[in-house]
């Protein structure tokens, strides 16, 4: 590997920029911890788990964050359960079943869906979706509304990225499958999905990250009551909505408590990422494409 002299300035520029990007991330994490520190000191972490409820600005403040963690997890998991099969089905339809013209229009529609700002989804949810749910079970603003809106928002992420993953399968695999006389469905389940596993998995995790972090849309349809949801129709408050609702007007201890909810959100995301690491590592079909290829060559 020859490194010509003229590459040096570029190399150092890139190194500096990479260091800057990393440093900014670390600085933000440090800032979060610094802002949350007073609350971790004075009420103490146990208050965030064992207090009766969440009244951070009251004269006898209570700081229980468990209902918000439960709300975040319930909304995210619900949306993942709904959006993942739909998204993968949409990707398979677009890649393997739809005629080219329909597939391209379908993709464009998905891209449009992905590009709609979240506040628009939230507004639509507030004026259309929640009144529908209210006729069924008042007050309408509920966990169910949050799940439906989130599913709609992450569906295009899963569909488009999975579709790209399916599209980037080496042509030879599909030609091989065709040569073996496999049916379309057998090609999908036996060749395409395993080969695109890594990309599909990453699309799902990216979507999960978006669902956990989504704020405005959820804030507008979820009802924001601080209570562990006991049914799909119960209002919930997510960690993100909690921060967005209160941070603008929070002082001192209240403000620090909100930064603790930020830290917990960060912890949830770290957990999600390590879980994905674990899933990808534990699953043999998720091995990198190169070794899959090698294995297939070996087995002829």
């Amino acid at each position, binding site marked *: 590997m020859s490194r010509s002299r003229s590459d040096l300035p570029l190399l150092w520029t890139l190194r500096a920029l990479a260091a800057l990007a990393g440093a900014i991330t670390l600085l933000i994490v440090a800032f979060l911890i610094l802002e949350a520190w007073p609350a971790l000191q004075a009420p103490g972490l146990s208050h965030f788990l064992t207090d009766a409820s969440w009244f951070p600005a009251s004269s006898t403040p209570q700081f229980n964050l468990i209902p918000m963690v439960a709300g975040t997890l319930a909304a995210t998991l619900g949306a993942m359960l709904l959006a993942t099969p739909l998204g993968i089905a949409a990707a398979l339809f677009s890649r393997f079943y739809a005629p080219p013209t329909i597939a391209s229009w379908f993709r464009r529609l998905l891209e449009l869906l992905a590009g709609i700002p979240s506040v628009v989804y939230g507004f639509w949810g507030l004026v259309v979706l929640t009144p529908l749910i209210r006729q069924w079970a008042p007050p309408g603003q509920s966990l169910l509304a949050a799940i439906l809106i989130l599913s709609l928002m992450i569906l295009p992420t899963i569909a488009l990225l999975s579709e790209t993953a399916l599209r980037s399968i080496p042509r030879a695999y599909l030609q091989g499958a065709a040569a073996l006389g496999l049916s379309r469905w057998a090609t999908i389940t036996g060749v395409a999905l395993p080969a695109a596993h890594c990309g599909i998995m990453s699309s799902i995790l990216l979507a999960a990250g978006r669902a956990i972090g989504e704020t405005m849309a959820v804030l507008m349809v979820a009802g924001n*009551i601080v209570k562990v949801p006991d049914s799909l129709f119960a209002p919930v408050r997510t960690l993100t909505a909690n921060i967005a609702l209160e941070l603008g007007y929070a002082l001192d201890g209240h403000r620090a408590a909100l930064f603790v909810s930020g830290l917990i959100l960060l912890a949830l995301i770290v957990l999600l990422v390590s879980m994905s690491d674990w899933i990808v590592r534990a699953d043999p079909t998720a091995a990198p494409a190169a070794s899959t290829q090698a294995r297939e060559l070996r087995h002829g």
Partner: protein
Amino acid sequence: MCRARIRLNALCAFLLLMVACSGEPQQSADAGAPSEKLTGQLTGQLTLTGSSTVAPLIGEIAKRFEQTHPGTRVDVQTGGSSRGVADARRGTADIGMVSRALNADEGDLTAYPIALDGVAMILHRDNPLPALSEEQIVAIYTGQVTNWREIGGADAPITVVNKAEGRSTLELFLGYFKLRNEDIKPSIIIGDNQQGIRTVAADPNAIGYVSIGTATYEASRGTAIKALSMRGVEASLENVRNGSFPLSRPLHLVTLGAAEQASALARSFIEYAASAEVSDLTEAQYFVPLTQ
């Protein structure tokens, strides 16, 4: 390889959220029009402390004041009305911010009203009830009454809309009805006034409260809400301004001693804060300016 990307993306999305949310809620002053007056003489520093209701407004006014009077610096800190009174007394602050009328034992201070804060109870326009008594409102918000039928309305469960912790409308509402936030049994909690309007307009069984400026503006534009009269006084900006609407409070700046004892800079800032030059800032924060 694909894993590293996910990790970064999730982290970035989260961090962006935190950064986006930690911004100040109030709109930034759009390049405050510098006044034509010749005021080059004013220099120095002012410190204001007190009510968290008044502080965001004073912060915006201070920005414009500093632009109008280069050489001045205005420092705004929050901590509640009682801190505003205490700091003005002790001299820690030049001016205190107080979101209520002064008490009898606070005669050593001079209070200058700069704006008014009013809250209107709102119902959906199709709700047949013409008005609610204060007892009924308290009963609804504490969960003793959960169906409109119980107080003479349609047979439908009441959707109780409450505000998120820390909002000045919540503080005024709780103070007026002598409630604690812990006693309220809300069905929905909302953030800003607009969200309150949208939520009530979308739900015929909802009751909520928002700043009176927003409520009257939206009702006049045909949004499906109606603002309730309180003690027979119609919810309007005029009634807040003339002091007859009960669910309202004055926002004050206070200084120690008689008016003449305040510094020239403090006096000119107070005059500026109550003037028509900043009424657009006052309205942007959903308060009612004293002058029209």
